[in-house]
């Protein structure tokens, strides 16, 4: 609900400011959706209505107006706030686990599944009795007859 209001407010503000060319607006919107609002961390800059998010959107607007490229603008923010400001973290030594981890886990899970299934197939369908146990059964129940599975012979 809160998020909805925030989004609506943000959309309203974006609309209110949309005096520039539509393609400029489009670019600002695209950029702000790639960026994290550092105050409400699970919202993008586009969704957030925190004061800092407004200031940063203003920065985006000015830099787009100044003719800087998308990469330059993203770099500008990464230099100040770190990779965390990007919703899509770059693939680096420190983020390898983040990117590869889920696939490694999936691989391990698959391996466990295959091993378990194989082991289960190798198991005999019914438990067989050892030699000692069979001798004991024969002694008690008499020689094996048609009812191999035991049960009461009497």
């Amino acid at each position, binding site marked *: 609900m809160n998020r909805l209001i925030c989004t609506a407010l943000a959309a309203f503000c974006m609309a209110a400011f949309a005096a520039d060319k539509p393609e400029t607006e489009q670019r600002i919107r695209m950029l702000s959706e790639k960026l994290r609002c*550092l*105050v409400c*961390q699970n919202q993008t800059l586009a969704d957030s209505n925190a*004061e*800092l998010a407004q*200031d*940063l959107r203003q*920065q985006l607007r000015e830099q787009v107006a100044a003719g800087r490229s998308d990469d330059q603008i993203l770099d500008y923010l*990464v*230099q*100040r*706030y*770190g*990779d*965390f400001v990007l919703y899509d973290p770059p693939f680096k030594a420190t983020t390898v686990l983040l990117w590869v981890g889920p696939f490694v886990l999936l691989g391990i899970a698959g391996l466990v599944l295959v091993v378990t299934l194989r082991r289960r197939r190798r198991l005999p369908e019914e438990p067989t009795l050892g030699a000692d146990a069979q001798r004991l059964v024969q002694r008690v129940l008499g020689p094996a007859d048609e009812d191999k599975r035991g049960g009461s012979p009497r």
Partner: protein
Amino acid sequence: MKRAFWPLAIFLVLVGFLAVGLKLDPREVPSPLVGKPAPAFDLPLLHQPDKRFVPADMRGKVWLLNVWASWCVSCREEHPLLVELSRKGVLPILGLNYKDRGDEAQRWLKQFGNPYQLSVVDADGRTGIDYGVYGVPETYLIGPDGVIRFKQIGPITPAVLEQKILPLALSLKQ
């Protein structure tokens, strides 16, 4: 026995991760600015708006840049600590008055005490963005070479002051 061992082991590993996770603060984002030169600015002083300050004026000194505002509630939490620190005269503290109103900022300092050698006014928050500020208060320890050596996000606690800031400041002074 072996069967019981695996779920237990997985559970313990999970508990370990969660225990570490509990102690981490997701709001503390490592600043890319630590180890880099403090961004330059040229801003008017809070008490003498006709005068200006640039960080280069502090070259050769170890100093704290504390981002504060009168509207910031947690700034009150750390303020007594800063006042105490300035009374001891360990290292100069400079204030960056972030997105505040001048009259309210001055009233706030009168009420709670002024630990700052001077405060500069960042009315539109632009310098704040250059410093990667996203949660006031924030404090930067800047070395004699003008490089940021430490950043505290949120209020300074006595533990942070004594275990991190002061030892680091001392080693920078030598």
